[in-house]
């Protein structure tokens, strides 16, 4: 398979790079001096693209790679891939569901606790020596608070299961109510936000869910409400979120994703009721290895004419 050209779109995993390099003819797009020149020279040998949450095979790239057969994403979110175009051209798409579900859900709860109990702010408080001068202020209890989840897929369900262990009543919004689920369903995000203390974004990003967290939802969540985003930055109208937080109209936020990563609105840096993470939802050694193995496994299966492990298209 060493002659098969695989194009990796950005740095994502040294382990994955190594493994791809040893099996295929790996091209690293970020090392290329002139993209158009590179594509002219190598496009006809590239049969696979490996992308991630940050970079995917969009329409332009797909058009530039006439021999493209498979896009294997090192992520579960596929919003950066032009899925329609892939379907149209018979290009397979694989992703990495399940292996990262637990880590992302763990992080959601970690963010909730970090915001409500001010874990990061109080860690800074101790490190600065401020504890010697006085106690930290009172924080907010998590156990028993109502958790509202947008999107009750694998990750949403895993978040619910964990929150239930904290005696949190669970409610949710999704396109349709799920028949076998005991949690309280709300047919709109605003109603969900009005009736919960903590709102967690756990749905895929697409046209319908773009800016699903808008001014109306933020107002409904209110000055004691907390927003947790473990989905995609564009789920949230970021300028609205920032002004709500700065003005105290929203109680707090735990964010792992942003509209223009790695840029984060600086106004958030001064806020104690906000926890800011650099898109680490699946960021554990164990899970990233499992994700890389899935990418490789899917590519190998494809080129050996075996069934794909985790196909989306």
């Amino acid at each position, binding site marked *: 398979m060493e002659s098969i050209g695989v194009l990796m779109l950005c*740095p994502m995993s040294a382990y994955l790079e190594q493994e791809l390099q040893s099996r295929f003819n790996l091209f690293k797009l970020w090392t290329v001096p002139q993209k158009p020149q590179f594509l002219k020279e190598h496009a006809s040998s590239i049969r696979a693209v490996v992308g991630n949450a940050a970079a995917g095979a969009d329409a332009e790239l797909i058009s530039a790679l006439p021999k493209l057969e498979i896009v294997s994403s090192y992520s579960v979110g596929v919003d950066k891939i032009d899925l329609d175009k892939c379907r149209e051209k018979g290009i397979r798409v694989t992703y990495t569901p399940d292996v990262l579900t*637990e*880590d992302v859900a*763990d*992080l959601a*709860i*970690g*963010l909730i*606790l*970090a915001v409500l*109990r*001010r*874990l*990061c702010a*109080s*860690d*800074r*408080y*101790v*490190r600065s020596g401020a*504890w*010697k001068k006085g*106690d*930290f202020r*009172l*924080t*907010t*209890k*998590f*156990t*028993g608070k109502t958790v509202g989840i947008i999107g009750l897929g694998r990750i949403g369900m895993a978040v619910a*299961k*964990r929150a*239930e*262990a*904290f*005696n949190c009543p669970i409610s949710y919004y999704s396109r349709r109510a799920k028949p076998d689920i005991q949690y309280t369903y709300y047919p709109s995000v605003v109603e969900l936000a009005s009736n919960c203390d903590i709102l967690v974004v756990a749905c895929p990003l697409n046209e319908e869910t773009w800016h699903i967290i808008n001014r109306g939802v933020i107002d409904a969540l209110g000055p004691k409400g907390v927003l947790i985003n473990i989905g995609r930055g564009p789920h949230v109208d970021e300028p609205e979120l920032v002004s709500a937080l700065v003005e105290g109209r929203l109680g707090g936020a735990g964010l792992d994703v942003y509209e223009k*990563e*790695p*840029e*984060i609105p600086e106004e958030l*840096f001064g806020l104690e009721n906000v*926890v*800011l*993470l*650099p898109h*680490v939802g699946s*960021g*554990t*050694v*164990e*899970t*990233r290895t499992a994700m890389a193995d899935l990418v490789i496994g899917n590519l190998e299966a494809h080129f050996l004419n075996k069934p794909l492990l985790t196909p989306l298209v």
Partner: protein
Amino acid sequence: MKSSHAHILVLEPPPIMIICGDQFLKNFRLLKAWESQLPLDQFLTIHAQSVQALLSSGRYSLTADILQLLPSLRLVVTTSAGLNHIDLPECRRRGISIANAKDTYSEDVADMAVGLLIDVFRKISSADSFVRKGLWPTKGDFPLGSKLGGKRVGIVGLGSIGQEVAKRLQAFGCRISYCSRNKKPYVSYPFYSSVIQLATDCDVLIVCCGLTQQTHHMINKDVMLALGKEGVVVNVGRGAIIKEEELVQCLVQGELGGAGLDVFENEPKVPGELFALDKVVLSPHTAVRTAETLIAMCELVKGNFEAFFSNKPLLSPVVLNN
């Protein structure tokens, strides 16, 4: 009811009174010993002879000597869950009832323990700090953390707090075992009679027990070495349960993988060597300091005194064993 019956003696203000004031006890007459210029024994001899009820801060030692100066005392309400500060045999001898915090704090403390554990494993505070310093665009990716699911968690002390911790961490796919003075009859988690055996078989130790002579410095270098280089210790009990000097040494020398600490041997002093480590998360003893729990504690204290003075059963009585 004679007005003297509704007096409550307070030797030093409990944390709830310092934070919330004393409005919650406005229906009672508070005898505030700390406000007097008199030495305590004189104050009690002059003012507290007919006092039947005492509000304890959970810290001031209620010794037999002090109890002797309170001949009418029939009730001690303490804002703590622990009873180490009270001479229990003397109270039993005198027929003095005790009401404590019961498990009012347990959920908050368990939440804190889980929060600290996730923070250490997933480097939440460290990553937040990285982002706030503007390093994400320049330095790129943040180091990977460690998965919580499947990790073996050893709970040291399976009381009310330990059980709440266990229940939460099971939902994260952690494998729970514990050590305790005695094996708990209705609990299915594997029991270990020694903390060092527990540490040998675990990836994480969560200290949830009280501080006693037996538990003092129980988590020492041997235990930490048994836990191992990837091991993580979380302490929401009392600082002195861990031999702090050895904890710092193990962390600095890489013998221990990380720690989440809400309590320290000499609060508010925290060993400076820990400040340079981002595998450590530090918290200024805030495990029970949520607005909700403080209000609940005020209600419980008030409710206990109201019950007592109207001859009703206490809300959170302590049963004194022989």
